């Protein structure tokens, strides 16, 4: 952890230091070589220019240069063949300067008012044997270079130090945040599923990341809670019949006198075991569907015929319950699906309506929407489902609280949900005040080529799980949604 942090700040500071060094190098190079080249050129030019003049005119020209001196950057000296100065600003022949016309650095002799100077100088023996020397003082360049280097040192060093400090600060802050996140993660790993990664105001990438991770955790928490609930509900729903079975068998073993009595008790016990087994088999079927294994069996299913047939079967059942069962099947609709599963899902929804609608009520199954996207709409005049419970009814083992213990197994609607998920359909619950509307949005057969169908299809869970999605979406029917019931009737 620490080493990583150190490396991190090192990585940040190294290019900065390298940049500073490079700048210093450029300044030094500029002061030492680049400007010297320009000087050397000027010296040579002057040497060539003057040595090309007629020898008789040269002393005069040099003297006139001296008058214009402020304009001239080079010094000139003319010496006799013996090295005595004749005319010019250079009064002493630079020691050790080969008179070959090449520019060299020399220690110039002192001149009035100046100390020892470094100069770039070149000398040449003229045709009449005299010696011409041209020189250029480099002390100003050296001064420029030195002040440049000094300036850079003054400016760059603090900048370097400040950025180093900043880097360390940022690194430590980041390390602290990462450490906080790590600790939070450890807590979550240890089982604190409601714990979240810390976020700070002001955003930043780490906060965005923390936000994303937190959203994942929200979703996971919901799933885990649902699973826990399912586990508890399964245990409860299995224990109820099995406890009864156990009690009955015990009674048969201890008290049944006649074989008839034993047989009666055994029959009851078998009923209880069957109930437990039906729970297990329903769970397995849902699990199987959720793995999406059955898509291969999809075929075109005529919804109108399918619903017509189903309603024909359930009409007598509805009549027995004193409920009027209507259909409105005017829109032709064919969907791609598993016929058996679609029938089972619709039958389940229908049976649910019949179960909860009081005698004298109505249940209507209609196909609305378009042929392209048909919607099966089942409306009843039952007690309705309060909005808060709507997302729950498709979960495994949900049933209205007051129904708990009445023996109904809350797997029917979760099986419906599994069938719908498998088909890529969507289901919504609305208020019909009074009663309840369930809408099943399907896809026309043939649109299924790009299987699974767009967006909401592959994962139905969010639209089922998020209550806002359920209440926000208007029913897809021709008639507008009835407004929310003022006082939601008791749930199912």
């Amino acid at each position: 952890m620490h080493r990583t942090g150190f490396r991190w700040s090192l990585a940040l500071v190294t290019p900065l230091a390298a940049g500073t060094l490079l700048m210093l190098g450029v300044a030094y190079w500029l002061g030492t070589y680049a400007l010297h080249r320009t000087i050397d050129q000027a010296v040579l030019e002057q040497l060539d220019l003057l040595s090309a003049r007629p020898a008789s005119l040269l002393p005069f020209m040099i003297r006139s240069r001296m008058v214009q001196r402020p304009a001239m950057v080079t010094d000139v000296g003319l010496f006799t063949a013996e090295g005595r100065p004749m005319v010019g600003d250079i009064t002493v022949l630079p020691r050790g300067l080969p008179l070959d016309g090449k520019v060299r650095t020399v220690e110039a002799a002192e001149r009035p008012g100046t100390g020892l100077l470094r100069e770039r100088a070149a000398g040449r023996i003229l045709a009449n044997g005299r010696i011409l020397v041209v020189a250029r003082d480099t002390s100003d360049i050296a001064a420029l270079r030195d002040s440049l280097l000094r300036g850079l040192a003054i400016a760059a060093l603090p900048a370097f130090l400040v950025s180093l400090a900043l880097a360390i600060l940022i690194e430590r802050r980041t390390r602290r945040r990462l450490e906080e996140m790590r600790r939070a993660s450890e807590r979550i790993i240890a089982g604190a599923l409601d714990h979240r990664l810390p976020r700070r105001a002001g955003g930043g990438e780490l906060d965005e990341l923390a936000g994303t991770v937190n959203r994942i955790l929200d979703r996971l928490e919901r799933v885990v809670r649902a699973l826990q609930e399912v586990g508890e509900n399964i245990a409860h729903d299995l224990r109820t019949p099995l406890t009864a079975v156990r009690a009955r068998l015990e009674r048969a073993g201890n008290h049944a006198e006649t074989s008839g009595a034993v047989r009666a008790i055994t029959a009851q016990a078998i009923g209880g075991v069957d109930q437990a087994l039906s729970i297990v088999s329903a769970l397995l079927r849902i699990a199987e569907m959720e793995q999406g294994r059955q898509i291969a069996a999809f075929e075109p299913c005529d919804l109108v015929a399918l619903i017509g047939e189903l309603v024909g079967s359930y009409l007598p059942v509805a009549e027995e319950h004193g409920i009027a069962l209507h259909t409105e099947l005017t829109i032709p609709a064919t969907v791609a699906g598993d016929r058996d599963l679609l029938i089972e899902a619709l039958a389940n929804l229908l049976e649910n309506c019949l179960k909860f609608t009081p005698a004298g009520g109505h249940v209507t199954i209609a196909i609305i929407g378009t042929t392209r996207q048909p919607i099966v709409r089942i409306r009843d005049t039952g007690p309705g489902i309060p909005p808060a419970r709507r997302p729950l009814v498709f979960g495994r083992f949900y049933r209205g609280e007051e129904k708990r213990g009445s023996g109904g197994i809350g797997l029917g609607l979760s099986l419906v949900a599994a069938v719908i998920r498998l088909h890529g359909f969507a289901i919504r619950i609305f208020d019909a005040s009074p009663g309840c509307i369930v809408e099943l949005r399907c896809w026309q057969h043939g649109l299924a080529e790009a299987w699974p169908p767009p967006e909401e299809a592959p994962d139905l869970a969010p639209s089922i799980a998020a209550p806002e999605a359920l209440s926000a979406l208007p029913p897809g029917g021709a008639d507008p949604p009835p407004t929310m019931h003022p006082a939601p009737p008791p749930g199912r």
Partner: protein
Amino acid sequence: MAKVTRILVIEDDPAIAREVVAALQHHGYGTDHAENGAQGLDAARSGEFDALVVDCLLPECDGLSLLRRLRSAAVRTPALILSALGTTDDKVSGLRAGGDDYLVKPFATEELLARLEALLRRTTANAETALRIGTLHLDLIERRAWRGNRSLDLLMREFKLLEYMMRHAGLVVTRSMLLEDVWNYRFIPKTNLVDVHMGRLRRKLELGGEAPIIESVRGIGFVLHVPD
């Protein structure tokens, strides 16, 4: 004395095999038991059985390929497939492989017996145009029904139900058999769907004060009595 009906049970689970064999013997069948596919195949090839009960998952040679090999060897003995829980898509492949009926474990013994009876009774040719049992008469082409001289006003579903009961006359027919064969449903409704329809059919059959001809068999299903 009538020949004993012989049934071959091909099942590797000793507990289930023991129960099935016991139940079959209790009901007067002669039974043989094969513990694996290879044994089962050899025994079934002999052709001396009237029906087979075949488990789907078998060591050495699984139930489906066993059936496939039997059928390709022209052994037509009716076969009832037993399958493990929660593998619905096995049903289609089971029937395609040459099975005649399909039962998911766990099952009630009565369900097994009823289905086996129906298999043993099954006649291959269903080309009749009319069915007649006692005073009951069904015209399969015109879709009309009579009890004696009284014409029965039956809905489509009731007609199909009566036809099925008449084809299985004298046999116990379970609710799940009716759901599968008359309704084509692959699930068990939570409502008393079958009973409601059966109740209406029975009322219509007895409307003229005739004696009941279809009776409930408690906890199992229904039976249409053949008059002596």
